[in-house]
């Protein structure tokens, strides 16, 4: 709790300072007001001059900021703060400045729900975004109508969020800006259908929603293209697995040709290191680390990649990778992010950054903070973002854009490994489409 308070306080002070400076340099009015948003209650911030009716648009975010997965929450905050500072420096959205409060969801659905309630009702957030855990996302989704807020999910990736809650149950307040599990399951299947020698697949997966859906979709799609493929073993690892040796040795006992693995962030790094210790890369032809294209994993294994220990057998994707696409929007984003934070952005940073710009585009379209108006403005919205053009599909509120997969390689132009040998597929080729067929999951 102290961490979330400390960070949000810092972010808030920073946002307030920048808002003040921006106001002064651009010659906008009410510098004093913008510089001290904290002392005002939402009722007092109302002003007739503003189109949206408020001086400050409050944005409440969540992510995991402690534990083995904490780098994701850090990246979400870093991306969101960068976008908010850029927008505030140019005068805000329709004259209203943005203010951020960020809380730790701790990967616990109950905590995420408590945070969402606090942000919306007590703190007075107009807009919600965030969450890393699929379980947390599935818990927040159903309370959004009651809170009367939209929430843009910038990481949690279970297909059920958009397929079941939006398309199935009609909870229109849910939007997802990041690519869902179709990315690492269906797209991985498209890559590996073209490896005729890989016939025996094993999985090491997260023992929760996320791992179940990736494994089910991957098997389903690969089997369609390659009836000859077998799925020979599976090991499930819950949150807080510190030692994956038992999981690795269990799946290796079935002598697989390749392994697909979902553990992410710090756990993903330890899994890969422990796999190296167990000599796995001498025995298999390929290892697909689903979110291995994320910056924290690339940083964590850079020494081993440079030493050639993975023998060019390590493959990965992400929901955005900093070296794709080579377009002005992306290059500008990566440069500003590196300048501000002295690191590369991972996909949760990009999706949080783009979330803030989606809010901007939607508010400029709706010119209203009313949830129903915002939903109308966001359905079918098209926006250029660092990851490419995103389109919010009206049926399930899922943003459509494509991200390639590739081999983890060293590139002299980058201080950390990148994805090379990129395999690019159009999003339509691997996103599931409505009406969605129910998916049978193993667990």
């Amino acid at each position, binding site marked *: 709790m102290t961490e979330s308070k400390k960070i949000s306080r810092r972010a808030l002070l920073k946002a307030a300072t920048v808002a003040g400076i921006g106001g002064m340099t651009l010659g906008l009015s009410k510098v004093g007001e913008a510089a001290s948003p904290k002392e005002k209650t939402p009722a007092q911030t109302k002003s007739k001059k503003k189109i949206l009716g408020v001086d400050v648009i409050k944005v409440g975010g969540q992510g995991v900021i402690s*534990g*083995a997965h904490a780098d994701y929450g850090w990246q979400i905050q870093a991306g969101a703060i960068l976008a908010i500072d850029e927008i505030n420096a140019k005068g805000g959205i329709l004259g209203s400045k943005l203010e951020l409060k960020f809380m730790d969801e701790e990967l616990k659905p109950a905590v995420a729900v408590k945070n969402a309630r606090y942000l919306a009702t007590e703190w007075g957030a107009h807009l919600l975004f965030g969450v890393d855990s699929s379980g947390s996302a599935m818990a927040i989704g159903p309370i959004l109508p009651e809170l009367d807020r939209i929430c843009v999910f910038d990481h949690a990736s279970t297909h059920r969020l958009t397929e079941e809650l939006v398309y199935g149950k009609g909870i229109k307040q849910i939007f997802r800006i990041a690519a869902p599990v179709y990315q690492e399951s269906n797209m991985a299947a498209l890559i590996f259908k073209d490896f005729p020698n890989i016939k025996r697949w094993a999985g090491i997966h997260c023992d929760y929603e996320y791992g179940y859906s990736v494994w089910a979709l991957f098997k389903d799609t690969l089997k369609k293209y390659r009836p000859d493929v077998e799925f020979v073993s599976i*090991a499930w690892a819950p949150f807080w697995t510190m030692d994956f040796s038992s999981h690795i040795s269990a799946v290796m006992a079935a002598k697989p040709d390749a392994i697909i693995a979902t553990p992410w962030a710090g756990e993903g790094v330890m899994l890969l290191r422990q796999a190296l210790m167990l000599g796995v890369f001498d025995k298999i032809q390929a290892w697909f680390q689903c979110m291995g294209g994320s910056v924290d994993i690339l940083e964590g294994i850079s020494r081993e990649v440079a030493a050639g220990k993975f023998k060019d057998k390590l493959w990965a994707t992400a929901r955005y990778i900093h070296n794709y696409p080579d377009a002005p929007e992306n290059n500008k984003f990566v440069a500003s992010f590196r300048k501000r934070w002295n690191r590369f952005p991972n996909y949760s940073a990009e999706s949080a950054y783009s979330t803030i710009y989606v809010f901007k585009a939607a508010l400029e379209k709706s010119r209203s903070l009313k949830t129903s108006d915002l939903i109308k403005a966001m359905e079918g919205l098209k926006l250029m973002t660092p990851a490419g053009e995103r389109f919010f599909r009206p049926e399930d509120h899922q943003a459509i854009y494509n991200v390639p997969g590739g081999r983890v390689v060293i590139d002299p132009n980058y201080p950390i490994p990148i994805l090379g040998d990129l395999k690019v597929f159009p999003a339509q080729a691997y996103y599931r489409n409505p009406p969605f067929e129910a998916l049978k999951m193993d667990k």
Partner: protein
Amino acid sequence: METLVFQGLVGLSVSMYLWLLAAGLTIVFGVLGVLNFAHGSLFMLGAYFTFTYYGLWGVNFWLAIALSLLSVAVVGYFMERFFLRHIYHLDHAYQLLLTFGFILIFDDAVKMIWGGVAKIPPMPSFFEGTVSVVGRPFPFYNLFIIGTGLAVAIVVWLLFEKTWWGKMVRASASDREMASAIGVNIPTLFTGVFVFGAMLAALGGALGTPVRVVAPGIGAAMIIQAFIITVIGGLGNLKGAFVGAIIVGTLSAYGILLFPVFELFLIFLIMAVVLMVKPQGLFGG
């Protein structure tokens, strides 16, 4: 058959971290009568101190472990001398409240000092490489962990069975007042036992540093398994902690191999069966 041998050996190496953690927990309970919820936090601190000395300051790996044990010993000394000592005469519920409070304090302190993001220091190069076991590569480091765990078991056994200090500890564990009457300085002895238990936990954390995640919360995640182990083996029983750790570590490894769908549930099932058949634990009594 080879598969089972290999998986058992992997499970045995996992057991050793659990043993080092459960050993201190059960010693402190057996002698002081305190169920230390924050024992896992001492494991976590052992990992963080080692990370700092070895990963950040570049101190030699062995020296880093030794320094980390001493650092945790100091923390343990303060915990016992200034907090736990005052509540020995109170009900167990007060001990749980106090030590649970310590978990929160240590977790937040770690976040303030080292940050919330997981730390992943490099592997010492002399530990790289594998040994062939039943034709499959087995990490040298895991072999080293198994060796260390067994060595600690022997040393702890000798300490309690063969030394004067061990006899005093056992005497005061069975009858505090009588031991005190024949001249054993109970408060000092208790501080020593608590510090010893803390150092065992720290050793477990320290040894995991190069291969496992160092993050706030690992202590709380580990302590549940340590409790299951002491319940299976018998609370306060050292032999029970050793056997319990091996049961939990190897059976989870076999569970992952043979019953991947309900592997997590397996450990709780064993605990439930032990509680039904022998409520005081396998070696309790």
